């Protein structure tokens, strides 16, 4: 199928319907922001409150599935031909995994989340106390640990298997071939792909908007630039130009170079804070929280808190799980696209453990530094984080040497992670709306990039950005079921491969 034919609406309903849907909802958000806010608040509240437990169950099921896949006989299967070698080296692979999956969120929440939990824990804990501090660190590890990666991996493993090993287009609908056969080419398959584009565009647009606000906050903290809608729109415009340039250069150059650079900068910043900060205190927090996380993994995974702390769990854990699921089409497709040639075992263990390990260190260093200020040096950073999460990082950095340099470095880090996320999202959306082509047309990448940024800008101005975020989270509910069926489809396919296609079992059997 030629690229030009794929851009015509009649032959590519995923593209045209996604485009209409996105533009319509952004228009509603611009014209009637209050109504959109009211509707989405109602729907979002109902989903989180009434079916929130299902997110906990599903996320735990995804984790168990990943562990099973890694250690079962299926772990030896290569995501590609049997003789194929990995396309990217370990450092490039881990850097891109990290940049796409966590990057910007980690910079935003690395300090803010532990401090917010310290200041506002569930009602059964005393705010600011020792138990609340342990709880804050444990929950931060939990929310950013192996569960998000398990969610992403279910998606990316399925896509990588069906596209690299089975020769199908890298689309979410391809993973359903063992279950629904040729119907993946008709409406059931198209609906899944449209839902994926919808969740990705809105997820990335809201992240762009919120990320721009944080960069604005950072510029204000470092250079005293006046915050306002003009500054935020300028940031969005500059970042858009940069990520479109990066997107044009393709995976092999743009995203890879930026991701590697950024991980190096992040490691440098983390090492600096570790050295100038309360080093032994940070290591102590890391060790203690890792132990708690490891021993309580199952109980944390299924803690729906029906008796006390239910509202807290809904506001944080269930919100996160829904958010990770809504991001999974984007991150899943991107991670799949950079993981060709790895075995299932290597893919799962690498993507599950290495980014999670780095995340734990990051939370221990930045969260630990913030905790030390709050609990031992009399600063009130926790209350500030509770009031404005985007400024927490800069407030903590201000308490340590070379604050202007580290803050500037953080802004650069934030901006580059911002660019890599938006860049990979643009690539993925263009791929999804080009029938899974690994070389989507440039015009489509630019088009989706501009739509994402325009959506973020328009909704920032009108005040409909949070409504859009809630819509992305609402899309997570159907996607949770999509992912559960993906696991079933992948297991069926792997079982078929082992039973009928492995050389030792080929003896005239069908």
């Amino acid at each position, binding site marked *: 199928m030629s690229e030009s034919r794929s851009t015509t609406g009649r032959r590519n309903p995923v593209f045209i319907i996604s485009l209409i849907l996105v533009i319509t909802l952004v228009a509603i958000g611009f014209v009637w922001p209050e109504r959109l806010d009211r509707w989405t608040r109602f729907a979002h509240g109902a989903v989180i409150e009434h079916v929130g437990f299902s997110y906990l169950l599903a996320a735990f099921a995804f984790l168990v599935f990943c562990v099973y896949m890694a250690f079962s006989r299926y772990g030896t299967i290569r995501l590609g031909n049997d003789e194929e070698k990995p396309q990217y080296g370990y450092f490039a692979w881990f850097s891109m995994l990290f940049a796409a999956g966590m990057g910007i969120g980690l910079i935003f929440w690395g300090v803010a989340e532990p401090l917010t939990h310290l200041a506002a824990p569930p009602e059964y804990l005393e705010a600011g106390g020792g138990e609340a501090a342990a709880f804050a660190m444990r929950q931060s590890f939990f929310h950013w640990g192996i569960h998000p990666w398990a969610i992403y991996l279910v998606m990316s493993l399925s896509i990588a298997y069906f596209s690299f090993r089975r020769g199908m287009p890298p689309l979410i609908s391809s993973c359903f071939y063992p279950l629904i056969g040729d119907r993946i080419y008709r409406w059931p398959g198209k609906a899944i792909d449209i839902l994926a584009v919808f969740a990705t565009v809105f997820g990335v647009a809201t992240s762009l908007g919120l990320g721009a606000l944080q960069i604005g906050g950072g510029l204000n903290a470092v250079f005293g630039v006046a915050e306002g809608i003009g500054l935020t729109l300028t940031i969005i415009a500059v970042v858009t130009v940069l990520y479109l340039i990066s997107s044009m250069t393709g995976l092999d150059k743009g995203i890879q170079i930026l991701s590697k650079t950024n991980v190096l900068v992040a490691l440098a910043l983390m090492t600096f804070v570790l050295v100038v900060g309360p080093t032994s205190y940070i290591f102590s927090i890391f060790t203690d929280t890792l132990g708690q996380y490891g021993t309580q993994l199952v109980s944390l995974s299924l803690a729906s808190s029906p008796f006390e702390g239910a509202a807290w769990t809904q506001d944080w854990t269930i919100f996160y799980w829904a958010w990770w699921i809504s991001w999974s089409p984007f991150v899943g497709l991107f991670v799949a696209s950079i993981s060709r040639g790895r075995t299932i075992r290597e893919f799962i263990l690498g993507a599950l453990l290495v980014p999670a390990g780095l995340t734990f260190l990051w939370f221990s260093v930045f969260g630990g530094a913030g905790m030390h200020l709050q609990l031992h040096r009399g600063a009130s950073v926790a209350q500030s984080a509770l009031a404005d999460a985007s400024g927490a990082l800069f407030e903590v950095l201000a308490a340590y040497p070379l604050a202007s340099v580290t803050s500037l470095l953080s802004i650069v880090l934030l901006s580059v992670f911002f660019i890599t996320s938006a860049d990979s999202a643009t690539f993925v959306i263009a791929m999804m709306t080009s029938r899974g082509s690994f070389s989507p047309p440039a015009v489509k990448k630019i088009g989706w990039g501009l739509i994402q940024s325009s959506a973020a800008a328009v909704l920032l101005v009108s005040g409909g950005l949070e409504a859009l975020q809630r819509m992305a989270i609402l899309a997570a509910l159907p996607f949770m079921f999509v992912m559960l069926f993906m696991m079933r489809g992948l297991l069926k*396919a792997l079982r078929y491969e082992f039973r009928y*296609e492995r050389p030792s079992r080929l003896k005239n059997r069908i």
Partner: protein
Amino acid sequence: MIFENVLIPLQLNESSARVTALADAIELFGTTNAHIVHVSADAGADISTARHDRLSALSKTMAKNGVRVTTEVSSGSPAVAIPRIAREHGCDYIAFSWKAKSWVQRTLVGSVTQDVVRLSDIPVFVHKRPIIPSTESYQGPILYATDFHETDTLAIPLLNDAALGPGEVVLLHSGERAPDPVAEGHRSRSVEAELARLAAGCPNRSVKTRSVLGSPRRVITAQARRLGARLVVVGKSNNTSRFSSMLGSTAEAVVNQTSMSVLVLSPASASLRIATQTADTRIAT
């Protein structure tokens, strides 16, 4: 003959009509010797005079078609004793007269027939409805569900035998869809070729072939119902996964869920037949 000797377990509460219908059915398989066994769960092999008289009466009913009948009373667990006795007497298959049980009865009390289907190494015939109905207008086919394994060597000569009455044979294969369109095309073509090869082994019959995607237990029962089959022949698989074992085998499910008579073939007896044929060929040469 491959179904010459049969073991017929009776609980002695079967009606004469049911035993007569079973006698008519086993005659179609060319059976000449029937060993009727009553297995009592109580210790000792003694039974009351009334039950002894009942066993004699049912034996006479069974012998009405000229089948040579012997009887035996045994004790112990029926599901274990029946396959053992069949083995000791060199029976070619075991035939049951089916008494329907509800799902609750099957779950709570269990089913000897179902247990024997699982435990037996020889074919098990479960008679539910006459294989050749009295109404001539009824032309339901014989359905053979194949997974292209050893049991084909037992099933194909039997299906080709005119004694099983007129009407067509449907060869059914059900399997899972391959993971991608190319592999699925290959799988589908291979299945069609295998079905055509089996169909060529039944020259005396009109044969239709069907390949249906899905779980065998669901597909076989649904197809048997849809086609109005008068006999379902199904092979037992040795390659049952642990999860499937918990749910029961496909053969057990077909026995439970279809309303027509079912013949379950086992791979062990098929292997034995292949070995015997090979030995015969060697002796002949």
